[in-house]
């Protein structure tokens, strides 16, 4: 009997260990919040290498899902200790039922970035470059501070571009660009009020036809990547002085329903009414820069107001949503102050609405959005815009897609980003046919044929025309850490001979610390029989265990006048994207060094050295410094 009691007692003692509570099961599985849209951010934060990003993109493109950290560890082939930093960012934090708010957390993040003035090298001497038209100093800077405490976040940032003064006296006193925000985020997904913002924020909605305040990526050859995955509300601390909202916003969730209320009030740049004969306010008057007296005279000359309500219903496979938005902008100066204005200037006031949907059914995936502005005197089609796409999986290895867009000539919205960054979502029609074929397990072929037209003459710099672009991309995953990509593009218009462009890129993870990328571009302007060429080498030394990282970029180019333009988009270690348009004959050298201390100090110094030989040979040297600290 004693033995039975003893066994029973021991068994009873061990029951809680054998039966793991539900919360622990979830915690042990290490659930992840990683989607394909998040991958570029992780690459930017240097938590993922470009090779890892390629592997993950391929995994997601083939329908894969990441549910826990073990899955991710297996795909990336990393050790557990190498995953810790990455997991801090993407692991779903399961709050304790009793102590969700009891543990105080305080984080301070400081960042200061300086782009020092360019130095010209003339006769072996360094000369400070300065554009005499610019009013301000020829350096750029961005200083930001972000504070996190429990569920609250607040931030303040100041930025200026090259040539802009730090402080403006006229026409409106103040810092060149100063933003701030206070944000609150719910501790769990079960709370009705999810997010609340006061200050600068970004809003992404639907497919970007009506409201997509941030700038998007370039037009992808892949329709699935062309589909927008709206992130909703996000706090804003960027340098872009145009594309953001400033006001109050909140997001509410209840089961599958989501409601977003937003408002924005801010002064924006506008051409003073005395300078233009056009009655209506035009967003294309300004570029966001305040360097010359002419640009400064436009600064904060209009008052922009946005108010909207958005509703969406989301299931795991489908989501549908609608947004009603009122947009209004008024010139700040009174017209009655001007003596030569014969007519009053009409402010621009738009009442708009949009409906979007995206989801999957059997072997179909579709997404689309339709937006319109309210106007009684204009036909519906002229004041509406439509994006519609279908992707059909014919076979696990073959995918076909169609994308149709038609933007009415009188459709207008302040913050559109409908497809790529090249179009404003007005006065355009286009059709894309796309094919994606997994030829071999490691070989992927993508084809895209796009025909687009500008149907109406609305402005002198945008004449009606038709364009056709054919793109073909070969993607060869040599091994897990080796990738080769080749792209061919042919662009033609009815009045010009076609322009062709080839781009090859080889990406090799040489060992755990070294990454080598070699890319070559060749552009052929058949009408002028001119070719433009570029060859670039990128070496990154980034050991996971070391505090010191290094990157070296060296490129040669030959772009004669009249030849097809060649751009490079270098993502420099710790500095970010550096885009260059190459002209003439020459070379460029970029170096970046990044040092991170154990006290969370990070210092990045990047040097950009460029030889260019056009009419006059120039050699320029520029230095970037970035300092960040987390407390």
């Amino acid at each position, binding site marked *: 009997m004693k033995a039975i009691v003893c066994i029973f007692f021991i068994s009873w003692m061990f029951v809680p260990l054998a039966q793991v509570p539900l919360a622990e099961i979830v915690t042990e599985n290490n659930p992840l919040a990683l989607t394909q849209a998040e991958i570029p951010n992780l690459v930017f934060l240097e938590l993922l290498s470009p090779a890892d990003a390629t592997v993950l993109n391929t995994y997601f493109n083939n329908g894969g899902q990441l549910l826990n950290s073990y899955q991710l560890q297996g795909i990336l082939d990393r050790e557990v200790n190498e995953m810790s930093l990455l997991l801090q960012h993407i692991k779903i934090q399961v709050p304790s039922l009793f102590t969700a708010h009891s543990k105080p957390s305080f984080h301070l993040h400081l960042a200061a970035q300086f782009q020092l003035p360019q130095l010209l090298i003339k006769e072996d001497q360094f000369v400070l470059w300065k554009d005499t038209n610019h009013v301000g100093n020829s350096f750029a800077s961005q200083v930001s501070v972000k504070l996190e405490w429990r569920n609250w976040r607040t931030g303040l940032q100041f930025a200026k571009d090259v040539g802009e003064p730090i402080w403006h006296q006229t026409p409106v006193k103040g810092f060149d660009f100063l933003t701030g925000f206070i944000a609150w985020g719910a501790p769990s997904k079960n709370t009705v009020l999810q997010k609340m913002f006061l200050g600068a924020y970004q809003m992404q909605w639907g497919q970007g036809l009506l409201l997509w305040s941030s700038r998007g990526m370039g037009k992808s050859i892949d329709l699935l990547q062309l589909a927008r995955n709206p992130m909703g509300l996000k706090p804003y601390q960027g340098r872009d002085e145009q594309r953001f909202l400033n006001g109050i916003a909140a997001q509410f969730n209840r089961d599958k329903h989501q409601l977003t209320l937003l408002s924005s009030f801010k002064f924006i740049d506008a051409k003073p009414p005395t300078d233009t004969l056009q009655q209506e306010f035009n967003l294309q008057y300004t570029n966001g820069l305040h360097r010359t007296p002419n640009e400064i005279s436009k600064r904060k000359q209009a008052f922009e107001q946005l108010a909207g309500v958005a509703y969406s219903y989301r299931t795991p496979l489908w989501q549908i949503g609608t947004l009603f938005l009122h947009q209004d902008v008024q010139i700040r100066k009174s017209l009655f102050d001007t003596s030569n204005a014969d007519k009053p200037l009409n402010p621009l006031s738009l009442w708009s609405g949009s409906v979007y949907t995206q989801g999957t059914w059997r072997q179909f995936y579709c997404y689309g959005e339709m937006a319109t502005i309210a106007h009684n005197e204009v036909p519906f089609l002229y004041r509406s815009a439509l994006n519609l796409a279908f992707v059909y999986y014919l076979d696990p290895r073959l995918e076909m897609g169609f994308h149709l867009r038609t933007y009415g000539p009188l459709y207008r919205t302040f913050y559109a980003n409908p497809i790529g960054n090249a179009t404003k979502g007005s006065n355009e029609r286009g059709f894309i046919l796309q094919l994606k074929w997994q030829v071999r397990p490691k070989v992927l072929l993508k084809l895209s044929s796009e025909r687009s037209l500008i149907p109406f003459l609305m402005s002198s710099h945008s004449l009606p025309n038709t364009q056709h672009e054919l793109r073909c991309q070969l993607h060869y995953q040599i091994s897990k850490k080796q990738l080769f990509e080749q792209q061919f593009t042919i662009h033609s218009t009815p009045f010009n001979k076609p322009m062709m462009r080839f781009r090859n890129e080889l990406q090799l993870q*040489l*060992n755990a610390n070294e990454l*080598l990328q070699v890319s070559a571009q060749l552009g052929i302007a058949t009408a002028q029989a001119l070719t433009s060429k570029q*060859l670039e080498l990128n070496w990154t030394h980034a050991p996971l265990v070391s505090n010191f990282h290094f990157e070296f970029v*060296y490129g040669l180019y030959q772009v004669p006048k009249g030849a097809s333009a060649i751009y490079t988009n270098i993502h420099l270690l710790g500095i970010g994207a550096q885009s260059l348009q190459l002209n003439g004959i020459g070379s460029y050298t970029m170096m970046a060094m990044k040092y991170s201390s154990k006290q969370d100090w990070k210092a990045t110094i990047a040097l950009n050295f460029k030889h260019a030989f056009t009419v006059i040979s120039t050699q320029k040297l520029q230095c970037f410094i970035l300092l960040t600290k987390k407390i």
Partner: protein
Amino acid sequence: MIKRLHQLLYFLSIPFLFWAQYMGSSQGGLMISPALCAVAQNQQPNNAAAFSAFNPKGYQLIATAPLRVANLGAFGFSIHYLKHNAALYHEVSVVFQAALVQFRTSHAIGYSLSPQLKVGIGLNLETYLQPSFYGHYLAANARLGCQYAFSKQHHLAFTLNNIGSAQTQQMSLEHLQLLQPTLLFAQGLSWTPHFDPSLYISLTQTIAYVQLQLTCGLFPQHYIFSLRSTHDKRFQWLITQRWQGGLGPSFQIGIVHQ
């Protein structure tokens, strides 16, 4: 391991990089073998990282007399060896012209970061010995190189030469594939931005006691056919026929002693 203590080479039209600008092309001189990847032979004259475990040390004596160019001759001596896991290379060469004498010395060090990856760095010094009336000339430039083995069959190499000089900077790339143990295929390019990129493909095969090499390229258009006797491992002879657009044909012979 094959021991190569002595190597003596006499042939015509050797790879002197500073001839490239005379020819108006990106090609690095009249190379018999523009190889950047080292598989069995040391190629550190072309790529500071191209050293081979099969050819750990040796030296070569070079004399040149291009028949088509009058009053031009060259002489060079180079040595390569391994020390503390680093591959070192030293070269001294002289080009005799009617008006001046070009004196050049080149040094390189290569190191294996991993079994697949080799990197190297080199320094070149060049001066002209000429009447003081024409002034003085002294130039120093650096070169970087890398060789990476994807697998036993595939090798990739790149070099950056003289990147501090806007006029003569050069980037070269080469991919080499071992189709069979005795059959090599190489494709590469070499580019100085003031000229068109020079592209080439090359096929090398060893049959019995003869090694054949065929190279053809564009910008400038050129063909090289080379035959090398390997019957005697210590004493070898070499015949090369070369044709290049603008320069015409040239005939090359050589003797290798190792």
